């Protein structure tokens, strides 16, 4: 018994080592959203394409969809854009845009030039909805279930790897939940 006790410090050191090593792989800049399992906050904002058309949280319900936060001032959004096109066109998952603190004209131009993956775009000029959602930088992509509840947030560029490993399995899971 006494001998076994001598190994205790070693065990503790190994345990701490394992925890710290596991922590090395975590990216501290990626935060879990505080809105997980909350409904999308209520909002009333114009559509990007049509300033007279008002959109609300009701427009996001009905089907599992991606809510993508983007802006023309965000270089990573340009990197991400082709993947969003692929997701919308090849995988048939609705992608809703949240045009965040942007210039309407520039954003429209961007969609003409780079093609438009979005079902529709919410024009959040002041960043109010962004603030309510807890957006802290673009791009961010939220998975919203058919009841309009935020289920997951990915911070950063969505690419093939992120889609395959993180987003696609979740979209399937939430779709099956109904």
């Amino acid at each position, binding site marked *: 018994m006494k001998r076994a006790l001598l190994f205790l410090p070693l065990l503790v050191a190994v345990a701490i080592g394992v925890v710290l090593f596991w922590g090395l792989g975590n990216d*501290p800049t990626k935060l879990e*959203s*505080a809105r997980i399992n909350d409904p999308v906050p209520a909002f009333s904002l114009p559509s990007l394409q049509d300033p007279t058309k008002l959109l609300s949280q009701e427009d996001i319900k009905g089907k599992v969809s991606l809510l993508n936060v983007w802006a023309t001032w965000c270089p990573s959004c340009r990197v991400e854009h082709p993947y969003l096109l692929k997701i919308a066109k090849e995988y048939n998952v609705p992608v809703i845009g949240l045009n965040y603190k942007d210039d309407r004209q520039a954003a429209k131009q961007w969609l003409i030039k780079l093609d438009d993956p979005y079902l529709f775009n919410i024009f959040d000029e002041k960043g109010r909805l962004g603030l309510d959602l807890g957006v*802290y*930088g673009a791009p961010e992509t939220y998975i919203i279930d058919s009841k309009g509840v935020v289920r997951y947030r990915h911070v950063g560029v969505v690419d093939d790897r992120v889609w395959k490993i993180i987003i696609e399995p979740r979209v399937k899971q939430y779709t099956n939940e109904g």
Partner: protein
Amino acid sequence: MMKKILIILLALMSTNAFSIDTLEFDTNAQRVQFQVLTEELRCPKCQNQNIADSNAPIAIDLRNEVHRMILEGNNEDQVIDFMVERYGDFVVYKPKFDTSTYLLWLGPAFIAFLGFIIVFVTARKKRQPASRAANVNELSQEEKKKLNTILSEKEKV
């Protein structure tokens, strides 16, 4: 000459101080409240700065939001709750005490307590062999008798 350069340099540096405070408040209490809050709230983008120090766009937005809420008459708890609701416990440098944070609050005290216990127990253990040795030196009545008989026998021889 040197003095003039110094004065110009100092004047240039002081612009830093001017640029920070452009928000207006009704009362001085509100200004103090704002300063306390922006120093307690952590910037989600530049994670080692509070929102008072950071110039990231999100920090500016959050500062404006704090400013708006203070002018509307919200108290500190309301502002903190508003931020935590949106950005999670991450956004406060001083997290609230609840079921998810009790380990964070009590952990250090618990580990210190554990340390004291370990030190106490080891210290006691170390002392025990010494006291046992002291016991060995003292003979029981029986042993004394035995010793006396042995000694007396020796004398006889």
